[in-house]
């Protein structure tokens, strides 16, 4: 009895949360590397460091889940929403946040229209968007960075506190990340949008044939990714107390890395949000451990790249479900 129970649990983990085996492995490694590793303070720091990446990954996962590989315009959305928020601060904190989020959503809508409605290639379209958004931002703000006015009492001073708020021992940014992950998980598993996205990712013709409005689904997926990117942009601008066109650099590839590590395959239709969270955790844990070990950043790159390929490969090998597998 117990053996079968253990077996079925193992199978459940292997099929759904494989990445957590790595998380566990890394946590064990970490505890050997330093006695301070498992302290709440360190773990909170770790979560804080990857919180922004986590938010981006939560949004981008929808795009990948729907079979559209990745959204390469995420860095420019981050920068754009950040810079628009800072620029709109004179109107008040809440209006600025709204404008910032809306600016990001506008770009997301553009993506959704082109890829969803018109069928453009997602990688190339989002790449083109990142080019011309960068050009647009550089032009509009003359390649300069803009600072919010932080005199006490102004919306600017409240804005820069946004990143630094704490819910007791836990920073706001971590809470936001967790809330967004829970919401995203709910969206993905228990709403129509999530289920339809899964079908679109698994087989687009089949989805169309079963009467799903594929265009709307893809449009909404890109909007979700843009929303997550906007939130990240606002927090990044708050953290660095400025808005600038290169604010989001590096988040495209890092986001895809986290999403893919978490088990959401590039072909689409597979994976889940807890997995993506696991992917984000793996990145955070790995970097933390390597920093502890004092490994130079060049060697860290080699380790990170290799681990990435290895983990994704291991995702690929699946325990044989009884029956034939696709050729």
């Amino acid at each position, binding site marked *: 009895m117990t053996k079968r129970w253990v077996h079925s649990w193992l199978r459940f983990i292997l099929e759904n949360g494989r990445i957590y085996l790595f998380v566990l492995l890394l946590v064990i490694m970490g505890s050997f590397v*330093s006695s*301070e*590793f498992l*302290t709440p*303070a*360190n773990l909170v*720091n*770790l979560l*804080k*460091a990857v919180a*922004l*990446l986590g938010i981006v990954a939560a949004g981008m996962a929808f795009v990948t889940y729907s079979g559209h590989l990745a959204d390469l315009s995420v860095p420019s959305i981050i920068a754009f929403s950040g810079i628009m928020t800072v620029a709109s601060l004179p109107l008040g904190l809440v209006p600025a946040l709204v404008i910032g989020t809306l600016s990001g959503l506008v770009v997301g809508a553009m993506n959704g229209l082109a890829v969803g409605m018109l069928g453009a290639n997602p990688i190339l379209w989002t790449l083109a968007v990142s080019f011309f958004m960068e050009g647009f931002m*550089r032009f509009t703000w*003359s*390649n*300069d*960075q803009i*600072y919010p006015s*932080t005199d006490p009492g102004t919306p600017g001073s409240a804005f820069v506190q946004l990143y*630094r708020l704490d819910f007791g021992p836990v*920073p706001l940014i971590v809470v936001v990340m967790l809330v967004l992950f829970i919401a995203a998980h709910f969206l993905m598993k228990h709403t129509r949008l999530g289920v339809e996205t899964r079908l679109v990712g698994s087989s687009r013709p089949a989805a169309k044939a079963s009467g799903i409005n594929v265009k709307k689904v893809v449009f909404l997926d890109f909007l979700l990714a843009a929303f997550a990117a906007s939130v990240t942009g606002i927090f*990044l601008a708050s*953290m*660095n*107390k*400025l808005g*600038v066109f290169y604010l989001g*650099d*590096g988040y495209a590839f890092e986001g895809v890395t986290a999403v893919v590590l978490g088990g959401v395959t590039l072909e689409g239709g597979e994976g889940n949000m807890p997995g993506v969270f696991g992917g984000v955790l793996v990145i*955070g844990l790995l*970097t*933390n451990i390597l*920093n*502890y070990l*004092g490994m*130079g*950043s*060049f060697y860290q790159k080699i380790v990170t790249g290799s681990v990435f390929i290895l983990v994704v490969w291991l995702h690929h090998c699946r325990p044989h479900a009884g029956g034939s597998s696709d050729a």
Partner: protein
Amino acid sequence: MTQNRTRQKTVGSSTARLLLGSLLLVAALLAGCPERKTGREEMTREERLRKSRKAARKVQKMVSTDGQPLVAWGTKQDVPPRPEEPQSLPKTEKGHWWNQEYAGWKTEKVNIPESPADGAWGKEIVLIRAGDHPYWTAYMKGFKRVADAFNMDVTIYNSNWNIVLQAQQTEQAINQRPDMIIFAPVDPTSCTLLLREINRAGVPVIASNTLISNEAMKYVISWTGPDDWGQFRMLARRFADAMDKTGGYAIVRHMPGSSCFFARTYGPITTFKDYGPEMELLAMNTANLKSAQTMELVSAWLTKYGQKLDGLILPGDGFSLTGALEAVQSANREDITIVAAGSSETGLQAVKDGEVLGITYQTAEGDGALACFTAAQWLNGKDLPPVRYLPKEVITQQKVDTYLPAQW
């Protein structure tokens, strides 16, 4: 099916016609091509020199956004003799870095053109700058002010951190045959051949902002810019004083591939060897100037070294500083001494708030202004030193108000 074939023939011939037409058009262009009007005013040599000297006096009185003099320069106190084999010395020895630190000082110049010495007024200069960044926006502001004072005709190329593009733009600049090229390199060694090309074409060239290799220094009239090594030695001494010349410190490095990667790391390390031998280097690593990565790195160090870590040296006062401060504040270690390379608004604000001990002063507007002014001086006929540094200063809380409002 016959219809099909005729259609295809039409397609083939229509495309061919298009190609032929465009080729004919290209050939027709051989008739003439637009030339840039020089638009240079005609005036006598004396008049030009008089106007140039007047402009030079005016420029030297100008003040940058932060209230500091726009055009100012310092020099190295004394240049020690070059060791026999710098590379063979250990990295913690000053001598190992001689070639980088004192680039240009003991270099033999090659084929330097003679100055026409007829004044800088109204001359045509080309600026090839390394890329876009708020620092460079301020650089351009300073540059343009001086150029306007001399009524110069300025063309600007932006290499956007791309060496291939810079090579192409160098050739375009040479093609223009300006009176002077001011060259801010993307890379300290890959610019050698480009400067050599400019030199061979007989166009005078001054390098600016980024320290170039000794080999490249042969081909330029002069180099102006921040004394990265000197500044960081100054900063290191102040840092050591604040730490009572003892304790453990860690260095966050700049981006690999830049000269700052070494200057801002080994500058302090080699200074401490003599100035603070009891200080211990606990860790050094790069975070690629990203805020989240710097935060993660410093957090890890704080947890690993705990109270052993007394000081931090940062490569910049923007994203790097923000990330480091976040980590320090989360760990309640505000007692740590922090210094950084400056000087942007974020850094100046941090110094004012007491979060940072000091930042180096690097006047972006002055960087641009000095480059342009040096060019003007050469065109006026003045002799130039091989290297000209921007003024060095460590901004601490007492002095910070004289450096506000920030340039960028």
